[in-house]
């Protein structure tokens, strides 16, 4: 998938060096350097005269990737669904009057597109409204872990020494605790789970992932010549950290954050399924799956439709992460 690169009208110089980089190291050891004289550097200036950064290049590249376009459209629809579920269904699943117990487990029909569940509620409306919890938990957990883990990773990578040792050892402790089991324990303490407690439980255990990635890429960036140069020129620690190191260390963190986001959504569903996450009457796909499981061999539709939405949502975020990684990965450029 990562190999799909539409042959767009790239500027010829970029294209050339790119192609040679891909073929050359393995097969044409001889033409690697000479094919492209130093004058044709990969990072050429764009029309407006501004130097093309990794980010503008990546954005330019991303807009041409079917993987990116597909996942972006899916995520857009899901986000709209989370914010304005009314746009997709006129039924309000929070209104108990919309459920007819007598129609429990009626299979899909014109009136109830996805059928009715064990309580006779409309599965379609519930599935649409379920997007909100998933997106909220996923996005907030991603933001919290990225900020917290990222900041600590930045500090650990930049300061090294005792700070680094203490922080790194601490993350090892968190790594040793299985995510779902640990989150389960934390949620039991809170009693009734909701979006915020689930987010907190996942964040407490998941931040070390971002930490590790950030720390590693900061250490790499720190040893680059341009950082050495900035240091030699007397730039302050804060300036070096935020102006020179952070922008260059950010790419892998963003990629892992996107991919993790899909994981958080799946984790929320799992915790809600186990009964420690989102609680009824709140609507969550995991909860819907849990409610449907007991009778699911007789009526599979209340279980399958939220499952499909859950899978597509996770897929969309992982695909987005994949596409962004491919666009940012200098090895592929």
């Amino acid at each position, binding site marked *: 998938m990562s190999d799909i690169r539409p*042959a767009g009208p790239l500027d*010829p110089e970029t*294209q*050339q*060096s*790119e*192609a*040679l980089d*891909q*073929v050359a190291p*393995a*097969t*044409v*050891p*001889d*033409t*690697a*350097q*000479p*094919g*492209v*004289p*130093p*004058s*044709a550097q990969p990072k050429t200036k764009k029309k407006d005269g501004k130097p093309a950064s990794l980010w503008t290049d990546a954005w330019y590249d991303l807009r041409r990737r079917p993987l990116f376009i597909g996942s972006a459209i899916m995520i857009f629809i899901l986000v709209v669904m989370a914010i304005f579920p009314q746009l997709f269904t006129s039924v309000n699943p929070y209104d108990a009057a919309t459920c007819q117990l007598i129609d429990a487990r009626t299979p899909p029909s014109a009136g109830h597109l996805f059928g009715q569940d064990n309580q006779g509620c409309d599965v379609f409306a519930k599935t649409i409204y379920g997007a909100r919890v998933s997106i909220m938990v996923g996005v907030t957990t991603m933001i919290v872990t990225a900020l917290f883990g990222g900041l600590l990773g930045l500090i650990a990578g930049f300061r090294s020494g005792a700070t680094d040792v203490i922080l790194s050892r601490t993350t090892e402790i968190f790594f040793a605790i299985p995510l779902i089991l640990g989150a389960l324990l934390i949620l039991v303490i809170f009693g009734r789970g909701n979006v915020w407690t689930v987010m907190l439980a996942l964040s407490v255990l998941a931040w070390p992932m971002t930490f590790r990635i950030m720390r590693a890429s900061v250490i790499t960036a720190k040893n680059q010549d341009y950082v050495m140069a900035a240091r030699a020129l007397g730039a302050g620690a804060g300036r070096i950290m935020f102006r020179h190191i952070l922008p260059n260390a950010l790419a892998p963190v963003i990629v892992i954050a996107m991919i993790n986001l899909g994981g958080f959504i799946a984790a929320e569903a799992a915790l809600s399924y186990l009964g420690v996450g989102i609680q009824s009457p709140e609507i969550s796909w995991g909860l819907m799956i849990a409610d449907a499981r007991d009778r699911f061999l007789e009526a599979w539709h209340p279980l399958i439709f939220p499952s499909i939405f859950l899978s597509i949502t996770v897929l969309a975020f992982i695909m987005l992460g994949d596409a962004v990684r491919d666009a940012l990965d200098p090895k592929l450029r």
Partner: protein
Amino acid sequence: MKSAKTTATDVLPAEGGLGNDALLEVDDLHVEFVTRAGLVKAVNGVSYSLRPGESLAVLGESGSGKSVTAQAIMGILDMPPARIPQGSIKFRGTDLLKLSEDARAQIRGQRIAMIFQDALSALNPVFSVGWQISEMFRVHRGMSKRDAMKKAVELMERVRIPAARQRVNDYPHQFSGGMRQRIMIAMSIALDPEVLIADEPTTALDVTVQAQIMELLAELQRESNMGLILITHDLGVVADVADKIAVMYAGRIVENAPVRDIYKNPGHPYTKGLLESIPRVDQKGQELYAIKGLPPNLLDMPSGCAFHPRCPYRQDNCVTDVPPLNEINLDRNSACHYWREVLDGSHG
């Protein structure tokens, strides 16, 4: 190009296994690479020949197509992206390019062997050096592990690795650069090949070690009468070892000649430039000569003579006409319109 192909070796009959006949004949070889950016013409009609016991040095900067030619002879180019639209590579009269992959694998390693530049990456890191040398005997000769190992030790002794018996089970990373290259050499001569191609065998090594390796290669060649193709970008390395030199530029041979002649009096402006850029003790204090300009872009080759943008002898027709490989004398050619002026030294 076609008209210029009358080199000395063309006079010789292509077949027959007698001592002095051509062992290997590359004729009008073209190699291209299909890349996303377009067609890269890496080799554009290279011809050279090699007799048993003869040493041919192929000289050129990176990108000149010298290694690609060697890889085409070995049959280790990745095809695609590489392809060979034209030309032949005759080994003992048989065109290797017409052979099946199985038949070529029989020649590879056993009859034509190759040494690579960077022995550290060219040797497999997870197998002992003894394993890697003895593999030749096990796979090609069906020897038992034990016998093959014995052979490996003998070979390591032959390339003068100290304490070979103790070190046979060591891994490549445990050896020094020079010793690793000796192991590479031991592996390549294991089955007494008729042709040995050494692709920049000393580039990654210290100067003193370079000389030892070159000496070893020369000695092994004398003992076995094999043909040696020495690929290098370093004129200094080849003087003592090579019989003749082929200078390559932008995928073409621009000059070929016996070693003495080239050093004495180069017949192509590029060769001349290369010779003048060798640092010499008697020119201490003077500014070192460097060929001006940059190597050609293989995707966008200059018109006419590929060297014209950098050439001090350039005339108008150099920009438009590709120079043929002119015969200077029976065993010497130059692909320069103005080879006479270059030989006279009236310029530059």
